[in-house]
């Protein structure tokens, strides 16, 4: 019993922070999303905000864009990260540490600004391409910012998240995978067989966990799309923010309802993905 109490006491500070700030915020958002906002005299609890959002084409456009951006960023980062980790696992720890840890320390905001300086139509990339004669003048450089396909946003996420996933994968590769692979080789397994039957099962829990974190993060993250996104449609967190700062306070329930839906959708995606991964593991 003593040790249980100790565990409970040790966990308490963290739980209090999570409980108050996270659960408290979520509950407050839920309450406001239901139209209960006594500060401006709204005391009727109803689903008007949700009804309005769900019948509005703008929300669907935002949702599709958000799923697309989060999905593409996660997919590309994960594939690149696995390839990079497989290549780098035999190299010395120091090189991979530098290559992968550096981008992790750079804030998303800084990464977004950096990417925009490189890929904007008057940026470094455009000038370089024009200087090399690849394009006529910098203005002919393809539009990669504020564009329909959100390339600037995805680039930033790939640059930021690939090292994160790679580090997780590298950690699991450096464990038992190398020994198991040697055993498989002595038993005559080919390169593809070794990857698919030995290495992949070892690293797949890491890949699943890391890519899920990346997806949940990019689905709900605000700053990069806010800086590099198109005026319309905007991804969901930006849509929520625009509603939140509407001069008209009664738009607040709509902003909160979007936030609640972001949280709910992330949870649904996470549950579905974990289930899929578990089935994959069993199969």
């Amino acid at each position, binding site marked *: 019993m003593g040790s249980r109490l100790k565990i409970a006491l040790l966990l308490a500070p963290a739980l209090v922070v999570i409980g108050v700030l996270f659960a408290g915020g979520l509950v407050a958002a839920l309450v406001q999303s239901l139209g209960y906002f*006594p*500060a*401006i*005299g*709204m005391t009727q609890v109803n689903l*008007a905000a949700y009804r*309005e959002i769900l019948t*509005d084409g*703008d929300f669907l456009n935002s949702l599709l864009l958000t799923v697309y951006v989060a999905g593409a960023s996660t997919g590309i980062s994960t594939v690149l990260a696995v390839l990079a980790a497989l290549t780098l696992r035999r190299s010395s720890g120091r090189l991979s540490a530098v290559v992968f840890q550096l981008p992790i320390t750079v804030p998303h905001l800084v990464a977004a600004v950096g990417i925009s300086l490189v890929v904007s*139509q*008057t940026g470094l990339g455009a000038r370089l391409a024009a200087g090399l004669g690849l394009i006529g003048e910098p*203005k002919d450089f393809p*539009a990669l910012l*504020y*564009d*329909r396909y959100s390339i600037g946003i995805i680039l930033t996420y790939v640059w930021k998240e690939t090292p994160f996933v790679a580090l997780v994968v590298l950690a699991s590769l450096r464990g038992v995978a190398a020994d198991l692979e040697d055993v498989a080789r002595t038993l005559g397994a080919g390169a593809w067989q070794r990857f698919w039957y030995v290495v992949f099962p070892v690293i797949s829990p890491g890949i699943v966990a890391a890519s899920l974190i990346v997806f949940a993060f990019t689905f709900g993250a605000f700053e990069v799309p806010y800086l590099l996104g*198109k*005026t*319309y449609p905007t991804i969901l967190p930006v849509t929520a923010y625009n509603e939140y*700062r509407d*001069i*008209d*306070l*009664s*738009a607040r329930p709509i902003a909160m309802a979007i936030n609640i839906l972001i949280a709910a959708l992330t949870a649904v995606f996470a549950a579905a993905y974990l289930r899929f991964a578990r089935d994959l593991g069993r199969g």
Partner: protein
Amino acid sequence: MSFRASMVVALTMTSLLFVSACGGTGTGGAGSSGEDRPFSKLEREARGTTVNISMYGGDDAINAYVDDYVKPRLEKKYDITLERTPLSDTADAVNKLLDEKTAGKDKGTIDLVWINGENFATGADAGLWYGPWAEKLPNAKYIDWSSQSINHDFGYPVEGREAPWGKAQFVMIYDAAKVDDPPKDTDELLSWTREHPGRFTYPAPPDFTGNAFVEQMLYGVTGEFKPFQKPFDQKTFDRASSETYEYLDKLESNLWRSGETYPTSSTKLDELYQNGEVWLDMSYNPQLAQRQVDKGLFPKSTRTYVFDYGTLNNTHYVAIPFNSPNKAGAQVVANFLESPEAQIKKQDPGGWGDLTALDIGKLPQDARKKLTEPQGAATLPTEVLQKNRLPEARTKWLLELQDGWQENVLKR
């Protein structure tokens, strides 16, 4: 009106009723009485105190004016410490005050807010402003309080609840090295963009400058501004706004990035102009071009001009919240901000470059001269600006116009 807009209007009205009803019982006392102490008493009371000013913080030149010019002088002259709280949007301060009002918090943290237009109107409807006080300041004698553009803030009666700090006027900016004859009205703008596709754009509303541009187009396309000074009327709005959106739609395909996206702020548009991606720029600050030229950001061949049919102008103010803990200090600061010396410094294009709120005719000779001198090749003479002034429409028209822009131009 769409379902959403009508719901929003209804909710706003009920919420405002609720808030003002609360104000009457709770904390309304300070808000309704106004200032009756003589200014000398205010000065004495303000000694050794701190005044918190909340203001939009997105412009370095403005921040520097307050921090490097205003702050040390207040300290020396009045022994007042000025603390500046930067806001990304003045609506944040209004929201905070609204929350405090409903929570019955009598002691707030803001003594002065830099404000105008819809933010002032929202706050005034909810009884958030202390007053009247502004017409009693000693330096109010330099201000033409009988002028409609001073005593009404975007059509909303000021009634001494905010003190004029400066004036702004919408201007167009072009690069004379690339553009011989800049478009001076809406027809010319349309044909200019056809001849120079991709070389023009405007910030997306609800950006402040973007709103102003769309409003400017409303005046230009309909050829009138008087109907929009009157209370909102749906029929007039439907006719006028559909003409405007139709025009903006025609413009869109020849805008920067074919109108697929718009700069999100005036700062972004300035960057596009600076990089030579677009050849025309716009600003609600007539001195912006000169300032950017002096800093080496805009090309030296940059010039400022106004549309033939005139351009929008408005006044911006400072207001004291109902729960300001230092109302005496706030008034002393507001009075200093209105002083001729502070206004002359403010109009310097090397710094903020904001037009004066003072009536030139009421000023002593030397101050008058300093405020009317030409200030660089990229600026316009004060007389040209004054001759081409159009009043802002009332807030309701503007809100409808910017909402409609999202539906009718951006999303199409």
